[in-house]
């Protein structure tokens, strides 16, 4: 790294910087110095850095143009370490800190001498609008290659390759009045609203609140305006009902006054957040604000004039020149030419002159400008060239001269001789464009106003706009509008405002502006030197003209064709000029060409802030049962079922394994399956949804919502039920038990619990409010432990006082009593086909009961099993899993479950009518069958497609697919469940499953029940 350079463009006095302290920083590896109060941009200008980037498409050298969020060129990559990399930072918005390290985003491999520059120069003429679409579209297979190259060359910035060390979080905020932008209008509005007692939030994107007043020549109460700012901020800071958020950008304005604010809390201090009291501070915070009223006081962006060579470093916005001089103590050049269409631009020349630099000339497009500003410039002895404009900037890496000529705006031509004025800086002002971005996020269409030559926001309910965003620019008027907006907003929220006395502002006589956007050149636009409209996306006036010639008439289409206003730029500087050029070419007015609609986000937001704390361990809730710790300690592998973590299988150490090697999943599952079939296994079934149903009409309700009958289910009995949607398709299943005549306990699938409760409420609240029944979720209240297998009875008998005799406690009965000393409800239902008891206890006792079962279960070979074993065992019995055998297109009849359908129930239960539609009656519907692979060693792939003739030409007609497939340890064979067209009539047929690797499996269609077809084992 070389020696620091001098701040040769730093002024000796003035500005809001602290010259007593020096900060060092690097840009593209070169060391520089600046001061606290600088932005990276002002510090670069102070050091005379002209080129900050290479342009996106043509790779032309680019310098700093603006002083705020609208900056199109000075977009840098920030970060002194890999983990701290941040792309797309605007140097104009980045406060300087000690050690800041930045580099150009564009300009591979070197911003000063650029390889792409050659391509840009050669390729420029070959890169018209639509270039990417036209050139790189064919052949399609090459796109990946092109894209890689284009991206690298275009340099869109890069994300860090290491984990972000920083923390981000979200705040849910609510307020009566949200003020966006704390310039003159915003502060006045905030003051008025705050004095009413309303809850007020004020967000401002800059390092300091005050907006343009911080760099203003104007006075309030005969003092410089920044003193009024300080007083107002003091008062607001002292109000308990006011939250001030500096360094906070309102990036998105969503429905119903929901605004997202991106607060950068430490980015002005260092590139990773400092540690304080042992905690890394929060780097950025996303405020999710629900505001009663929103006051938009977002101001206006100055609009540059579009002239040839307007992208050469040294071309700047007039207002930015003033800001750098007055706020940052930097004169970004020595010799200025100002090209303006209005009075506001004059301030730059006056500030420049006061800073001790040379104003070569003010070039005013108006024939006979007359106002206090013009008089002030004349009084300073500044030369004013009227009826003229800078038609071209000369220079390559920095402006060397301005070519100035008389112009005829109406005829769009140069109307006089051209003179060349030597200078290093050209400031331009084409008036202001209100910052209507946020307003336009709401969907409100902006309105064009000829008098201010700009769009003002269309407004929706609950929004007030004031000041620059409203096209109001005179300071006295801005303040008055701000106060009025504050009063209105507070009043709308029921807060009356006490008096707000406005400070007296100077009344300067203002002359009318002229509407000038693109400046004519001696040559026609298509053949002349490039005139840039959108500097960030390298869109030229010629490009827009070409687009209109190619038939694009809507501004939305022109935008997409040329890329104008794309990406992080969002058309801040270029959109209005682009529309004006399109309007000129199409011979229409600007509002006829269209309005301009902006999208969130206003400026880039780091992913960290969007994510907040919803990352890593807190990305999504993990739901645990009361037995979770036991599963963890037992070494279970877990499966995600919805948000639940369920034990999937419990791999054991392999017998005799050195270094503690564990069983594979297949080994563990085979062992668990056999333990259940031969001894006894235990499953944590607590995740099943449980709904407590009470009321005299509970039974009637069940009969309407389930497909099967419930009229005769006696107290003490359980029944399996199937649920359909009204389209006749299966949506859930489970066992419901009759606890008392008016009291049932419904179980649902693990994943379906919340949705089924809502489903029951839906029917009760909307269609059947006359039924007296209530539903409450008791899923979490109960822990459910399933012991299953031939030894289950013996095990339970050891620790329970319930009479387990097979004749008094039958299959599909439930009983209550004590298990391990804990009150329990025990259900004799089975999902494995074995003798099964489902023990339900209050969840706080679950661990004790589970451990007691293991204490007594060892001698019976009690084996914990997970969801995979459960799936194998139930499939051997042909029991469906909703969501696996079904997919929303499967009826009970498709499943062969007519036994579970009460066709003759008195009420037309949910799903019944649909079962007689022609489509659900079709004979070739996909029906559930079993598949036995001809080769018992084959385990078919779930999802594999089934064909009848494997020799058929591709595409083969597909008749179904495998829904479940496993290896069965008890059968020592692969087996599967599948849906096959007309499958119920195809038992014994052979089908084929062609696989991606060229193999074709053969399988026989069989019954869905592979094991214990008579169902004797569960009854023992």
């Amino acid at each position, binding site marked *: 790294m070389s020696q620091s350079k001098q701040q040769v463009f730093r002024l000796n006095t003035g500005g809001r910087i602290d010259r007593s302290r020096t900060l060092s920083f690097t840009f593209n590896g070169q060391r520089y110095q600046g001061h606290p109060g600088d932005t990276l941009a002002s510090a670069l200008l102070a050091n005379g850095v002209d080129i900050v980037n290479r342009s996106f498409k043509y790779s032309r050298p680019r310098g700093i143009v603006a002083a705020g969020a609208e900056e199109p060129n000075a977009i840098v990559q920030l970060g002194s370490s890999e983990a701290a990399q941040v792309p797309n930072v605007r140097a104009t918005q980045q406060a300087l800190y000690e050690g800041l390290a930045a580099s150009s985003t564009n300009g591979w491999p070197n911003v000063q001498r650029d390889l792409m520059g050659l391509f840009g120069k050669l390729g420029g003429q070959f890169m018209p609008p639509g270039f990417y679409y036209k050139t790189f579209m064919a052949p399609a297979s090459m796109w990946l290659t092109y894209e890689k190259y284009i991206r690298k060359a275009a340099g869109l910035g890069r994300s860090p390759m290491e984990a972000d060390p920083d923390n981000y979080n*979200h*705040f*849910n*905020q*609510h307020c009566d009045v949200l003020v966006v932008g704390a310039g003159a209008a915003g502060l006045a509005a905030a003051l008025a609203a705050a004095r009413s007692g309303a*809850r007020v939030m004020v967000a401002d994107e800059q390092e300091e609140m005050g907006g343009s007043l911080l760099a203003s020549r104007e006075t309030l109460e005969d003092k410089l305006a920044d003193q009024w700012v300080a007083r107002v901020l003091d008062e607001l800071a002292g109000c308990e009902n006011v939250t001030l958020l500096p360094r906070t950008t309102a990036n998105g304005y969503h429905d119903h006054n929901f605004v997202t604010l991106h607060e950068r809390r430490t980015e002005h201090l260092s590139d990773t957040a400092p540690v304080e*009291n042992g*905690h890394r*501070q*929060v780097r950025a915070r996303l405020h999710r604000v*629900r505001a009663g009223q929103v006051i938009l006081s977002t101001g206006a962006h100055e609009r540059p004039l579009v002239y040839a060579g307007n992208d050469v470093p040294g071309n700047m916005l007039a207002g930015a020149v003033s800001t750098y001089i007055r706020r940052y103590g930097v004169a970004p050049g020595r010799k200025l030419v100002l090209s303006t269409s209005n009075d506001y631009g004059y301030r730059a020349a006056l500030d420049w002159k006061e800073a001790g630099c040379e104003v070569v000339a003010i070039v005013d497009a108006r024939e006979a400008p007359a106002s206090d500003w013009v008089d002030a410039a004349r009084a300073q002895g500044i030369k004013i060239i009227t009826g003229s404009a800078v038609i071209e900037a000369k220079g390559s890496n920095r402006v060397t001269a301005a070519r100035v000529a008389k112009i005829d705006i109406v005829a769009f031509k140069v109307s006089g001789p051209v003179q060349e004025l030597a200078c290093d800086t050209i400031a331009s002002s084409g008036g202001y464009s209100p910052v209507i971005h946020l307003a336009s996020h709401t969907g409100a269409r902006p309105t064009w106003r000829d008098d201010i030559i700009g769009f003002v926001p269309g407004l929706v309910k609950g929004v007030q706009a004031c000041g620059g965003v409203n096209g109001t620019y005179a300071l006295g008027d801005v303040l008055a509008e701000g106060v009025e907006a504050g009063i209105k907003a507070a009043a709308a929220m029921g807060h009356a405002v006490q008096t707000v006395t406005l400070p007296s502002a100077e009344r300067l006589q203002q002359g009318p502006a002229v509407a000038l956007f693109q400046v004519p050149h001696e040559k026609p636009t298509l053949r002349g030197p490039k005139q840039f409209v959108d500097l960030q996306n390298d869109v030229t006036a010629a490009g827009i003209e070409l687009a209109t010639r190619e038939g694009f008439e809507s501004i939305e289409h022109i935008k997409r064709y040329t890329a104008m206003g794309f990406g992080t730029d969002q058309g801040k500087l270029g959109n209005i000029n682009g529309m004006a050029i399109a309007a000129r070419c199409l011979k229409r007015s600007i509002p006829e060409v269209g309005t301009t609609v902006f999208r969130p986000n206003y400026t880039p937001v780091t992913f960290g802030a969007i994510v907040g*704390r*919803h990352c890593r*361990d*807190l990305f*999504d*809730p*993990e*739901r*645990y*049962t*009361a037995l*979770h*710790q036991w599963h963890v300690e037992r070494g279970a592998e877990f499966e995600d079922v919805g948000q*639940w973590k369920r034990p999937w299988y419990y791999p054991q150490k392999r017998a005799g394994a050195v270094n503690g090697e564990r069983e594979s999943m297949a080994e563990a599952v085979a062992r668990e399956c056999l333990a259940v079939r031969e001894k006894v296994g235990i499953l944590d079934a607590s*995740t099943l949804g449980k709904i*407590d149903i*009470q*009321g*005299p009409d509970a039974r009637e309700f069940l009969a309407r919502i389930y497909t099967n009958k419930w009229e005769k289910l006696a*107290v003490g009995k359980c029944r399996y039920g199937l649920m359909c949607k009204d389209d006749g398709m299966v949506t859930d299943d489970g066992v419901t038990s009759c*606890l*008392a*005549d*008016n*009291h049932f306990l419904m179980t649902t699938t693990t994943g379906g619990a919340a949705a089924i409760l809502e489903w029951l409420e839906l029917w009760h609240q909307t269609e059947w409010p006359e039924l*007296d029944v*209530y539903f*409450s*979720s*008791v*899923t*979490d*209240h*109960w*822990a459910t432990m399933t012991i299953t297998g031939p030894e289950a009875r013996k095990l339970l008998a050891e620790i329970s006082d319930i009479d387990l005799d097979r004749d008094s406690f039958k299959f599909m009965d439930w009983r*209550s009593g*004590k298990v*391990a*000393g804990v*009150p329990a*409800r025990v259900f004799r239902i089975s999902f494995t086909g074995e003798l099964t008891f489902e023990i339900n*206890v*209050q*969840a*706080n*006792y*679950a*661990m*004790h009961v589970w451990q007691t079962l293991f204490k007594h279960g060892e001698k019976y070979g009690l084996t914990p099993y997970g969801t995979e074993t459960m799936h194998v065992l139930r499939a051997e019995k042909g029991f469906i899993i909703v969501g696996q055998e079904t997919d929303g297109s499967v009826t009970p009849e498709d499943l062969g479950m007519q036994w579970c359908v009460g066709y003759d129930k008195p009420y037309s239960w949910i799903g019944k009518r649909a079962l007689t539609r022609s489509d659900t009656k079709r004979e070739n519907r996909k029906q559930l069958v079993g598949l036995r692979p001809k080769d018992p060693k084959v385990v078919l792939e779930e999802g594999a497609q089934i064909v009848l003739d494997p020799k058929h030409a591709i595409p083969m007609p597909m008749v179904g697919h495998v829904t479940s497939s496993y290896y069965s340890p008890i059968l020592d064979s692969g087996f599967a469940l599948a849906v096959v067209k007309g499958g119920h009539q195809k038992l014994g047929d052979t089908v084929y499953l062609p696989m991606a690797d060229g193999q074709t499996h053969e399988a026989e269609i069989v019954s869905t029940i592979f094991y214990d077809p008579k169902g004797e084992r569960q009854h023992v």
Partner: protein
Amino acid sequence: MSNAATFDTRTDTAIPVESPLAYSYRRSGAPQAGGPSRLQLRERAMLGHLILRGGAIVLDEAVRDVLGISLPGQPQALVQDASGERSIQWLSPDEWLVIVPGGEEFPLETKLREHLGSAHFAISDVSGGQTLVEISGEAARELLMKTVIYDVHPSHFPVGKGVTTVFGKATTIIRRPSEDRWELVIRRSFADYCYRWLLDAAAEYGVNVQQ
């Protein structure tokens, strides 16, 4: 007596119980920031939680007679008895949450059922399915702003209010029984997520967790 099954899920014997946060204490600990902590977290474990369903007029009389406090009829209302140990919270126009000292829930349910007779109502014991976490300290409101989407500003959330709302990506019931104390009622299966969320959000203020 309504035709519903009642079931006392508690037992008097010295059988060990585990609150919904038992696993979380072992996994994440119970941080002790010591003196300067701006936040206190305390689980009130093993309380009795009942869900009451029915018409307000029907239930009100029974609740007043049995529990000595009146049923809150206004949305989002939370009422407590003089000791603050027993509370009823409005959850919906026909649903209330009753929280009482652990062990009182079954006798309470029994008495309410006797009192309500053949009226149409429902009572569900959910004591094992949720737990109550108290939050106090000067940073409590800021912690809650990071946690729940509901507006917790005192002007909007006075003492005596309680709502069901979104907690991170889960849900919670949040209540304000007194000026300086908030309560979260969280579901057992989400308890560990909620606890880790709260510890994470609380870290910057320093937090004392009382077990």
